[in-house]
């Protein structure tokens, strides 16, 4: 599954919701950042305003007591401010004189009167500094009279509610975005599933077409789709019909090709019949003249017998090869050996050196008629391609799992366009030539048996065809063969 995903990518039903999720996460991250940043800015501005109001109030109340160095008045002002400015949440406020000696603190135990203030933030630039980690804001204010510094106010404000609010907003954003993302992803999944449902239907039909049977999409299914898909489906149906028509046509072409090859055979067959016929007629003449001589008569009759038997073999082979409506049966070695009768005239005429090796077992579970047709076709092609005196090799055997047939010639080899055409699954009309068509019909026949044709170069430099058809060998037969 994972390797499939890696190789082919995710299905659209997964990838689109995933993209939605990623986009949402990206967008919500950005939005959250902006919201939080805005919130932080707003909070800090509010805090700064509040803090400044607090410091302004204190400053007004503290100038006099600080000038008088009156700790009680300073403390009293701080103590009252703690209640008045409760909204600012002051944690502690300390007032020092210009030298940094504590006059009074709202938290006198940590900053007693007269102590030197530890330098918390003695000369910070800003009035307000946030220390988020400690959840406090540190404020300081210089108390000046007539341009002279008379003291300082240092204050710490509790900003934990602000930080808590930020945290709450963050969680609210995360939760609401997560819910939104899930909803959108689910919607995306449903939407994509709905969108690609027609594509699935189309894919199924295209796959079946690739398998050889192009079934049109039923009219009621077409009707259910939206306009685009309906149009596409109708086009597919038109194409499927054309495909079916072509299939019919090709079957017809294949049949015609078979007959055409018979035509090509006719002359050699006629020759094969004519030769013994001449001998037979001579024998008949001899019997007519010297029929009284028993020795001569016997010899002539034997000659007639041999000639007629030869004619019978030829006629039977032709019949076996081209008679329609036959019951399918298993392949026997004789099926191929028979064909020698049809090929021999051409072999003889062109003085071809034929190497014939037929090692088939007594019966192989393969359609005999189809394979005969295929082998005859290949042999005739090879004879035609092989020059006078050239070599031709035929080999047939059953290996552990397959029937293997090889036909090699010493011809010029296959033209590249025909080799390419055979390598592809279907014929392209533009490339169809008569010689190619014969080979294509061969290939089609082999394919019908579940096998394949492998085209290559022969050792003699010509073309080599290997036909491999998987067979299920019955076990005891196999054992028998091994024995």
């Amino acid at each position, binding site marked *: 599954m994972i390797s499939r995903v890696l190789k082919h990518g995710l299905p659209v039903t997964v990838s689109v919701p995933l993209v939605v999720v990623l986009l949402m996460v990206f967008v919500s991250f950005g939005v959250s950042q902006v919201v939080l940043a805005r919130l932080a800015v707003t909070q800090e501005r509010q805090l700064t305003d509040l803090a400044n109001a607090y410091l302004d109030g204190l400053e007004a109340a503290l100038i006099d007591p600080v000038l008088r160095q*009156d*700790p*009680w008045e300073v*403390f*009293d002002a701080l*103590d009252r401010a703690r209640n008045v400015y409760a909204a600012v949440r002051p944690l502690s406020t300390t007032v020092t004189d210009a030298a940094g000696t504590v006059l*009074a*603190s709202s*938290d*006198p*135990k940590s900053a*007693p*009167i*007269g102590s030197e203030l530890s330098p918390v933030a003695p000369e910070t630039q800003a009035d307000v500094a946030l220390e988020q980690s400690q959840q406090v804001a540190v404020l300081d204010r210089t108390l000046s009279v007539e341009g002279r510094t008379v003291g300082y106010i240092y204050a710490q404000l509790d900003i934990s509610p602000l930080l808590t609010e930020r945290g709450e907003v963050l969680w609210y954003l995360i939760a609401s975005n997560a819910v939104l993302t899930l909803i959108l992803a689910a919607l995306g999944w449903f939407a994509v599933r709905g969108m690609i449902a027609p594509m699935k239907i189309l894919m199924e039909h295209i796959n079946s077409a690739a398998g050889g049977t192009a079934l049109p999409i039923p009219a009621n299914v077409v009707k259910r789709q939206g306009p685009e898909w309906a149009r596409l489906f109708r086009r597919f149906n038109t194409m499927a019909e054309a495909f079916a028509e072509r299939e019919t046509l090709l079957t017809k072409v294949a049949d015609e090709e078979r007959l055409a090859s018979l035509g090509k055979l006719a002359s050699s067959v006629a020759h094969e019949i004519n030769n013994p016929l001449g001998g037979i007629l001579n024998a008949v003449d001899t019997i007519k003249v010297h029929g009284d001589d028993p020795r001569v008569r016997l010899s002539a009759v034997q000659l007639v017998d041999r000639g007629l038997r030869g004619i019978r073999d030829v006629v039977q082979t032709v019949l076996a090869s081209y008679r329609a409506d036959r019951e399918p049966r298993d392949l026997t070695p004789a099926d191929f050996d028979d064909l020698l009768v049809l090929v021999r005239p051409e072999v003889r005429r062109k003085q071809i050196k034929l190497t014939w090796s037929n090692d088939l077992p007594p019966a192989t579970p393969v359609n005999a008629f189809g394979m005969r047709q295929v082998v005859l076709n290949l042999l005739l092609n090879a004879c035609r391609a092989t020059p006078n005196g050239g070599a031709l090799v035929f080999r047939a055997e059953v290996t552990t799992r397959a029937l293997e047939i090889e036909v090699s010639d010493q011809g010029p080899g296959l033209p590249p366009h025909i080799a390419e055409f055979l390598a592809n699954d279907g014929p392209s009309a533009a490339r169809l030539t008569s010689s190619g068509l014969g080979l294509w019909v061969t290939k089609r026949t082999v394919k019908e048996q579940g096998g394949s044709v492998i085209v290559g170069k022969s050792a003699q430099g010509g073309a080599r065809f290997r036909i491999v058809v998987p067979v299920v060998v019955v076990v005891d037969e196999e054992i028998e063969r091994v024995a």
Partner: protein
Amino acid sequence: MGTMNRREMLVLGGSAVLATTRHAVAQDDVLRFALTPVFLSSDLDLLDHLKAYLGKATGQTVQLVTRRTYQEVTALLVSGQVDGAWLCGFPFVEHKTQLSLLAVPVWRGKPLYQSYLICSADRDATAIGDLADDIHAFSDPDSNSGYLVTAAELARQKSTPDKFFRRTIFTYSHFNVVRAVAAGLAQSGSVDGYVYEVLKETSPALIGGTRVVRASEWFGFPPTAVPRAAATSAKTFDLQQALLNMHKDESGQEVLAMLRLDRFAEQEPALFASIEQNWDLVRGIT
């Protein structure tokens, strides 16, 4: 002042005369009575009731004049800008030649009160010696219980507040002394025992943060007084009668209840002799 010329002196003097004249005219139809904050927490209510009672009892328009320090109140009284005032025993003995005793409050059956030394509740000090080097809160430099008693005790040990304590602060109210000690601003304080006892009742949470280190001997309760020059005036008589009869009047009883006092009584100035002795001690006269 050294650079002030003669004409400026005349102008200042003139305005002082004018002010005095205006007050003298005003004294005829308004009874002015001065006091310092007592408890702070419920002072406005108390002042309303006191003003209402005095107005009813004297048949005059009463104006209550409040000042932050005894010094200010004493100055008003000595200069005749007010007809009477509620002082502390200490300023009374300081200005006894210029003042005349009017009436003295009676608290828990006696015209007496104590000074308390207090510290925060978590300390276990039992005597003034345990408070050395503290930041110490006094109420008012002119207060007997809030300053003089402690200063005199230190004087008997040949010391002074400034030497004995690390630092002293004045809060100008007994209530604030308690606040300062409770908050930890001061580690100890000198406070009016009467105020402290009343605060126990009215502000227990505040008092809870403190404890009494020691109570002093008994002193004359902070008295009411009039300028000696006006001791025999009708206005003084009316005021004195109003004070002495407060406990006999319903609205007067309300005022006394708020103050947690029994009544006002006539007393001899000798009641404040021990305060004067302390003053002499602190001044180094003895």
